[in-house]
């Protein structure tokens, strides 16, 4: 016997399940051992395939050979002016190198973003494990926000949470790549959600804006930039709930 969800297990492990179905499916998983085993075996397969599949690496000689052959093959046009004929191979090679550099730069930026997610996730987990997760304990935003005065080189707005399911627990100063920032802790039912706010700028990596976290990570997260500040929200609640908090924070930042 297979349930209605069994055809969607691959989509779930590939993070391709629509947000609307995600919560429903996660709830279903708790009560369906067959689907839970299916998800587990798929995650195992993804994991072993990923490590086994990254197997072959090109030699530096091949890279050099390709660069040279591109320059030679795309050679001078017989109809163009002599200066153009002379420069075509160089321009062609420069174009390909630019392509390679661009793709490398994009990849590096992405990789730094992924690394930053990991570091901030560590901060979040370390906070949850701490006996004193916050330095200022208050559900009142008018107490928490002023506490950061003199501790941070910027200020930020906190949302009004009275009509929402979220509750502010408190905050502390966090450091990320040698920069001080605010670490705020919220609660949604039993889920703890961290909000990190840092000043924009600098060369340090930061989670890719709007990007989903690594697929292996079971945390939900969102990152964005607003008013010269970088925001990163992470928690183990579902993505829709996390997004609701994100919207509240964005709305507060604009007010």
């Amino acid at each position, binding site marked *: 016997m*297979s349930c209605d969800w*069994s*055809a969607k*297990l*691959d*989509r779930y492990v*590939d993070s*391709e399940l629509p947000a609307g179905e995600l919560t429903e499916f996660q709830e279903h998983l708790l009560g369906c051992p*067959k689907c839970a*085993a*299916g*998800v*587990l*075996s*798929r995650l*195992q*397969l*993804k994991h*072993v*395939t*990923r*490590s*086994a*599949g*990254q*197997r*072959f*690496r*090109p030699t530096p000689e*091949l*890279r050099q*050979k*390709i660069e040279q*052959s*591109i320059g030679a*093959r*795309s050679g001078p046009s017989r109809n163009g002016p002599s200066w153009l004929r002379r420069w075509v191979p160089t321009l*062609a090679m420069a*174009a*390909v190198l630019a*392509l*390679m550099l661009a*793709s*490398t730069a994009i*990849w590096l930026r992405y990789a730094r973003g992924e690394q930053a997610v990991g570091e901030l996730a560590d901060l979040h987990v370390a906070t949850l494990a701490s006996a004193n997760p916050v330095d200022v304990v208050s559900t009142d935003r008018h107490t928490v926000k002023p506490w950061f005065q003199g501790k941070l080189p910027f200020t930020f707005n906190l949302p009004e949470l009275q009509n929402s399911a979220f509750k502010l627990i408190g905050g502390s100063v966090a450091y990320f790549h040698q920069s001080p920032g605010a670490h705020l802790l919220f609660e949604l039912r039993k889920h703890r959600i961290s909000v990190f706010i840092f000043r924009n700028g600098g060369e340090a990596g930061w989670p890719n804006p709007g990007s989903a976290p690594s*697929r292996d990570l079971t945390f939900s997260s969102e990152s964005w930039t607003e008013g010269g500040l970088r925001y990163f929200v992470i928690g183990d609640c579902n993505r829709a709930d996390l997004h609701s908090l994100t919207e509240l924070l964005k709305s507060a930042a604009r007010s």
Partner: protein
Amino acid sequence: MFTSLYNLAHWLTRNPQEADDLLQETYLKALKGFESFQQGTNFRSWMYRILRNTFLTSRTGLNSKMTEPFDLEDGSTTPAEADTPETLLLARADQQLVQDALERLPVPFREIILLCDIEEMSYQEIAEALGVPIGTVMSRLSRARKAMRELIAVKVRGTAK
């Protein structure tokens, strides 16, 4: 991307010399047809599409089309039955065993697993790279993984005897 494309080329051709040639030809074609690349579309998918098309018209690619069922039926999704014994078997699968299983898969199954699990492309990106509808990506991926799990299970059971 250079390393990543090479890895894919090697997995497709299963031969270092052919992988070198395939990658070289891919870059030459990319340069030649760069005007056809539409800004705003996915560059990685575009490059992979060139690599794949080049492979399919190569001698090895044509051979693989003749010896393997390349146009696999994509009509129905047949989700694999996953049970606890299978997860135990997968847990015992070592790297060599997984690589062997991947090599034994038909090209369409091998490439879709590589794109999804190693390159971590989204279904949309894979659809663009393979030039197939997203529904085909989902059903093919499901069957490719089922085939892979079965190959691994057979191997693990075989070595356990």
